[in-house]
């Protein structure tokens, strides 16, 4: 799954190389959105902080 996220951004870079600007930015946007979702999936442990 994590490898897939890197693949999304690699694909965005390849699209830039192929001069597909809007498609590359759309793919980047999808990648960032999925990354944020995946971050919240992993950020489950309570922080050991007290103020």
């Amino acid at each position: 799954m994590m490898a897939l996220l890197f693949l999304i951004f690699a694909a965005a870079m390849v699209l830039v190389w192929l001069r597909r600007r809007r498609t590359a930015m759309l793919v980047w946007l999808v990648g960032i959105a999925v990354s944020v979702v995946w971050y919240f999936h992993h950020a489950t442990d309570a922080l050991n902080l007290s103020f």
Partner: protein
Amino acid sequence: MQNSFARFLNDLAGLGIAGILAFAFAWQLLLDELPCPLCLLQRLAFAAIGVGICLNIAFGLRPSHFGVILLSALFGVLASSRQVMLHIVPGSGAYGSPLWGMHFYTWALIAFLAVILAVGAFLFLFDRAASTPPDGGAAATAAGPSTLGKISLFALIGMTAVTVLATFAECGPTECPDNPVSYWLFD
């Protein structure tokens, strides 16, 4: 002249981001310290920053490309600061070996904040160069990247591709373990 210098700085930044990904991968191999899921999310943020830099290289400097860089860096701050907070209380342990007294997630947080600072300074100093030109960037796109820009572009694509393979080797098609000690592919 301002435009060419601005693009030169952007090309250098691309090499810098590729260098960060390369260093992290080399550290992983040499010290046999596999990245945790949060660590991988931080590498992901660097790759996302790389997309914005690639856009600048290929299509010329545009505000939307800097937006890509800034939003990616903010995501990086989110992931790295989370990991810093997990270990900030004395006695709560740490992940990985320190480099010059600080762990990689702390260095990553500094790097992401530096990217945000650098973009702000860049937009302040290179106001016209970073604006969308009247032709919508057609001339910049037609001109294509410089030699350094091409090297930077391929370095970013290459290091992101290497990270794809390394991450698949570590985690496979399943979720990455919280404390990885071996590669899924070689078990």
